């Protein structure tokens, strides 16, 4: 059974204090590792897709990386507006059943 585990469950950082969020996965025939940001009471907002080990993608203060077993979301010099829950998800197939298997998320709080 596909499984995605995120750590830590919650993280509190001072503004400007860089850190990393971890996502380990067991998804047979992985065809994409996704990162989303979710604000309370809202739908997930797409951030990145990574397809192969060694791939990296960046957006503003966020950088996502992928290995064969895990993915990291690096946050550099975060600001209070980066506070949210960050979800990662693995997709097994490109076509047919495209379900995303999500982790439980990391709740990030940036303190001014």
């Amino acid at each position, binding site marked *: 059974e596909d499984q995605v585990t995120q750590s830590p469950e919650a993280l509190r950082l001072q503004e400007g204090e860089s850190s990393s969020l971890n996502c380990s996965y067991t998804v047979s025939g992985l065809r994409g590792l996704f990162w989303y940001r979710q604000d309370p009471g809202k739908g997930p907002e797409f951030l990145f897709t990574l397809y192969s080990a060694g791939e990296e993608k960046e957006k503003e203060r966020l950088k996502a990386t992928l290995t064969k077993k895990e993915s990291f979301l690096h946050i550099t010099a975060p600001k209070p507006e980066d506070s949210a829950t960050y*979800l990662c998800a693995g997709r097994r197939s*490109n076509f047919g059943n495209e379900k995303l298997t999500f982790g439980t998320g990391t709740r990030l709080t940036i303190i001014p």
Partner: protein
Amino acid sequence: DAGVTQSPTHLIKTRGQHVTLRCSPISGHKSVSWYQQVLGQGPQFIFQYYEKEERGRGNFPDRFSARQFPNYSSELNVNALLLGDSALYLCASSLDGPGNEQFFGPGTRLTVL
């Protein structure tokens, strides 16, 4: 361009009732997926439809059903509601079946009393 839209925003029902949730995908997107998100958990996959055909089904009871219309909008139906069905129901659309990102709507918050 408008994103994924869902209606209603909030809904309160009692046990045993039936509910219909609606989703309109991003213009040009042909695939719609439904997820259930219980508070404090990640979204759980319910259904995926592509070109009006069911492409995948998650581990949910037969009380849950869905369909996709010719204009690619979709409905999720839940019969005989239970307290445990209280959750945020999310709809996601993608451009084509294979290899494209899923974009989520704002969700419908269902409360079962």
